């Protein structure tokens, strides 16, 4: 799991306000810090309205990070259609997109065949998977599971440690469901591979 000396990964998370986008971006950055990386987490900043889109940029790097803002990210984690339409054109040429198949229709993705050429696209029914384990609000953590399983920038235990740190102060009960959602994301990808 040891990464190259100049390993650096830039990720944009985006979705509806309320989908846990900032939680997911923060979680991944914190896990990175616990694993010994440099990390920045930049939430979109400005007046926002309920139901509007929400995004954040997370960078983890072996070396010091200069700019916290990123135009063309290595990875996109997109949980809804407006985010797909907004950010997909900005993905790096050989970038990775982790898309929520429940809210981004497959026909829309297929229509962009040309734009998406050369990019790695993972379509994951994040809402369905989180509903299956009984926690429909944890689609964001299913996404984190898929993201971790694809990149594996650090050991899994750091996600667990980060979750423990973030679910303090009366939210400890949510740790087990979060870990289950994280596992669901990993397992979905493993199954896809063997198909």
């Amino acid at each position, binding site marked *: 799991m040891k990464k190259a000396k100049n390993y650096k990964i830039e990720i944009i998370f985006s979705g509806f306000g309320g989908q846990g986008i900032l939680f997911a971006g*923060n979680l991944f*950055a*914190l896990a*990175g*810090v616990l694993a010994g*990386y*440099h*990390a*920045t*987490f*930049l*939430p979109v*900043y*400005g*007046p926002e309205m309920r139901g509007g889109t929400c995004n954040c940029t997370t960078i983890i790097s072996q070396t010091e*990070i*200069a*700019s*916290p*803002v*990123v*135009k*063309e990210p290595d990875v996109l984690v997109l949980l809804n259609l407006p985010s797909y339409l907004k950010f997909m054109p900005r993905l790096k040429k050989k970038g990775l997109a982790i898309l929520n198949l429940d809210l981004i229709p497959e026909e829309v993705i297929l229509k962009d065949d040309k734009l998406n050429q050369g990019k790695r696209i993972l379509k994951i029914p994040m809402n369905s998977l989180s509903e299956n384990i009984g926690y429909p609000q944890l689609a964001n953590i299913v996404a984190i599971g898929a993201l971790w399983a694809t990149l594996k920038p650090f050991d899994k235990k750091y996600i667990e440690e980060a979750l423990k740190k973030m679910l303090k102060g009366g939210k400890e009960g949510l740790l087990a469901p979060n870990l289950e959602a994280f596992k669901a994301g990993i397992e979905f990808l493993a199954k896809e591979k063997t198909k």
Partner: protein
Amino acid sequence: MTNRVLIKGVEAVALGALEGGCDCYFGYPITPQNEIPEIMSVELPKRGGAFVQAESETSAINMVLGASAVGKRAMTSSSSPGISLMSEGFSYLIALELPCVIVNVMRGGPGLGGIEASQGDYFQAVKAPGHGDGRFLVLAPASCQEAYELTAKAFELADRYRNPVMILMDAILGQMKESTVLKKLNIKSITKDDWALTGAKGREARIIKSLFLDSAELAERNLKLKKKYEQMEKEVRFESILDGNEEVLVCAFGSMGRIAKESVLKLREKGYRVGYFRPITLFPFPKKALSSIFEKNNSLKQILVLELNCGQMVEDVMISVCGKAEVISKFYPPSVLPFPEDIEREIKKCLRKVYFVSPKV
């Protein structure tokens, strides 16, 4: 095991203030800096300090004045419109030679503006924080680590010069989280026994005042302050990336400095002859350091100044460079945040001008 955490810039400021020995915090809430009073309200009472949420910014700054006068390490924090409300107090603090730390997490202006990231208060911070001929020592961090360390250091500097020190930062740095090492810092405490108003029992009474109706006395007062600002030159700080072969130098501070650094590093990797200069003290401005770069390097013909405002620091750069190079101002008003790619384009434009001087028609 180092104490490495993921914290926001404003949280780093609060933790830095505690490390710097802050005794008292007074303030009034405003976005985007509310995490500072939030942390101070929890932490200061635990350490025997005082936290007061005042009824307005005007009261807050005068509470700072009172606490400072009796010898405490005092601070306040706010954002642009709130800072303007405090400016009368700023002038008095300078006049009374009272140390304190003031944090401005800038937002877009003028007026109530918006909450977007901006560096629009550069002039206010650096040139005229209040009326009269007074200055702040101004520190501009560009990372959460620097926000932590500079805020702690600010208390020592304020005490050393008996002058307010301002931490000037913007909403990007304030609201961004970054890996930060909360290391123990060696912040010196400086005795205030010779001036603080601690009760005159057993000694002669002291008067701290700003009214000097005797014109000779007032002139002398101003000259004394001027001398102090000159002594502050010792505190000049900056970051630079240079090897002496540059043709273009990029100059920016705070968040803008970081974005520009990314572009400079990328271009240097590809062999472009571009350097980087980030002032950390905005007052005193690193004039001599900047000027000497041009004296040492004859191929350096241009300096590109980038700011998240409509062009303010560029004037200090012009004074520093003093005709030794062409000064180009590229500015971004609130909510027009450039990406490193945009800056790369601007740098390349400058380099093209160096290589191909357009023929005279």
